[in-house]
């Protein structure tokens, strides 16, 4: 088991954003995390990456308890993420953005020449090679999303957390992104993906976890989830059950 989350809790005032959530992820899986707006998906990712400290619960990653570890140590543990609202280094070039992942992430190199070469090939993977010397602030939103992915990849994670990376993409772009995500998995990286696009999440995930109001309401393959009355409840309301 690569990741094992047990009884994870996080409240904001009286609001239980993540309520006693358990789940686990095996090496090599793509796991989908879905749920309506405000159901606690991003909060879960924030807990996994140290951006929030859990109120209680355990997060075992790669045989190590990491709940509450500082956020800058998570990358070294082997977890990298993208942000729902992208956070590029605006005044740096694409290749510099990626080099930061390569020089501070897992298996970081101190050799800037090597880091630069690697960063070019990572940019190639996400289709940004020709934009290597463009400042992030001069990129479109779509390019910034790919850059964010490239940066996380450069950190050589074992587990990659993707928070709505595909939101706002058109059909063709989403298909391309799905292909990229499959390639990433094929390269040996385990993926936890948060996405609203049904086609993407169903097409990519080996397993799907459904959250509602901070609680896990269902878990299973795409087929199982689709016909699960609890999930239908969550998305369509009780009357349709």
């Amino acid at each position, binding site marked *: 088991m690569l990741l094992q989350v047990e009884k994870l809790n996080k409240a904001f005032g009286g609001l239980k954003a993540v309520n006693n959530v358990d789940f686990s992820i095996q090496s090599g899986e793509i796991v989908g995390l879905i749920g309506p707006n405000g159901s606690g998906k991003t909060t879960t990712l924030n807990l996994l*990456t140290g*951006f929030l400290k859990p109120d209680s619960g355990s997060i075992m990653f790669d045989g190590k308890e990491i709940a509450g570890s500082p*956020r*800058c*140590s*998570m*990358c*070294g543990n082997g977890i*990298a*993420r993208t*942000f729902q609202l992208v*956070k*590029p*280094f*605006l*005044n*740096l070039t694409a290749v*510099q953005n990626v*080099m*930061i*992942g390569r*020089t*501070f*992430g*897992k298996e*970081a190199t*101190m050799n*800037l020449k090597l880091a630069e070469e690697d960063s070019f090939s990572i940019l190639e993977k996400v289709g940004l090679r020709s934009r290597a010397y463009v400042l992030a602030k001069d990129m479109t939103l779509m390019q910034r999303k790919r850059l964010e992915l490239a*940066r*996380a990849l*450069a*950190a050589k994670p074992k587990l990659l957390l993707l928070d709505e990376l595909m939101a706002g993409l058109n059909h063709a772009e989403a298909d391309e992104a799905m292909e990229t995500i499959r390639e990433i998995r094929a390269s040996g990286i385990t993926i936890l993906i948060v996405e609203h696009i049904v086609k993407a999440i169903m097409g990519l995930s080996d397993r799907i976890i459904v959250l509602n109001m901070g609680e896990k309401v269902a878990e299973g393959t795409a087929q199982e989830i689709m016909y699960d009355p609890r999930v239908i409840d969550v998305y369509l309301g009780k009357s349709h059950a």
Partner: protein
Amino acid sequence: MKKNLSFVIALVVTAALAAVPLFVKKDSLLTYLCMILLYVSLASSWNILGGYTGQVNLGHSAFFGLGAIATRLLWFAGWNILLAMLVGGLLAIAFALLIGSPAFKLRGAYFTIGTLALGQILYATVGNLFPQISSMPVQDLISYTLVTRYYLFLAVALITVLAATLVANSRWGLGMMAVREQEDAAESLGVNAFQHKLLALVLSAFLAGLAGGAFAFFQIGYYPQYPFSPIWTLDSTMMAYIGGTGTILGPIIGAIFFVVLKEVLSLNLAEFHPTVFGILFILVVLFLPGGFMGLWKRIKDKQQKKRESMAELSHP
């Protein structure tokens, strides 16, 4: 190729600066160059934390002042001046380490205001503790030569610019810029933001402390409080912004521009020059983001684009 060219230019400029006292015999002109070199040191050291790491520090004069006061006391007590300066730099580091933790708990404008307050506290405290003017002892006055001071200022400026260049082009520099641009993203990629800010502060403090030491060796008589004055901070900050923060050349250009303009203004406008600088600063912040270096880069980018579109036209 481009790196080699910059290196050659830097060597030539250094050699030219080293040769200056052979040709310039007028004390007023040499003093003037000393001031430019001092300000290059102050603005460049400020830039390591303020420009590269994005932490706008308005307490920079504290480090300059600490370097000056320690150097002055030790030098008068008979120490070798270089050794005294080193201790001044170390004292500045000690103060940086002391304030680093609490100061970096503050973010953005709060950090800026916090450092301003610290600087003011030190300024007032030194004024109370050392109210007497500090004058050079007679034997030092007799042996005083401006050329020695010039070389010391030159050495400190070179060390500062060299240190800034090395850091900016290192892995640490990448981390600092990442912290400046987006702290959350930087940390998610493994950059320890606090460590990077602290390193930038310590280096910035040490270099400002050395500059303070050179000042203590140069200035014949002054109130010990004077180097702690916020005016040093404001001047260095403005120079960095005018020239362009987060670049190596920016603070250098800013310092030259500032000292020259100040000279011209104080000759002609005497009392008004602070006002003129204030207005100039606001204009730069509003209309010249990135300072002179930013402007230069935009012009170059435009030319590049023009060239690209010309190339496209001729090879459709």
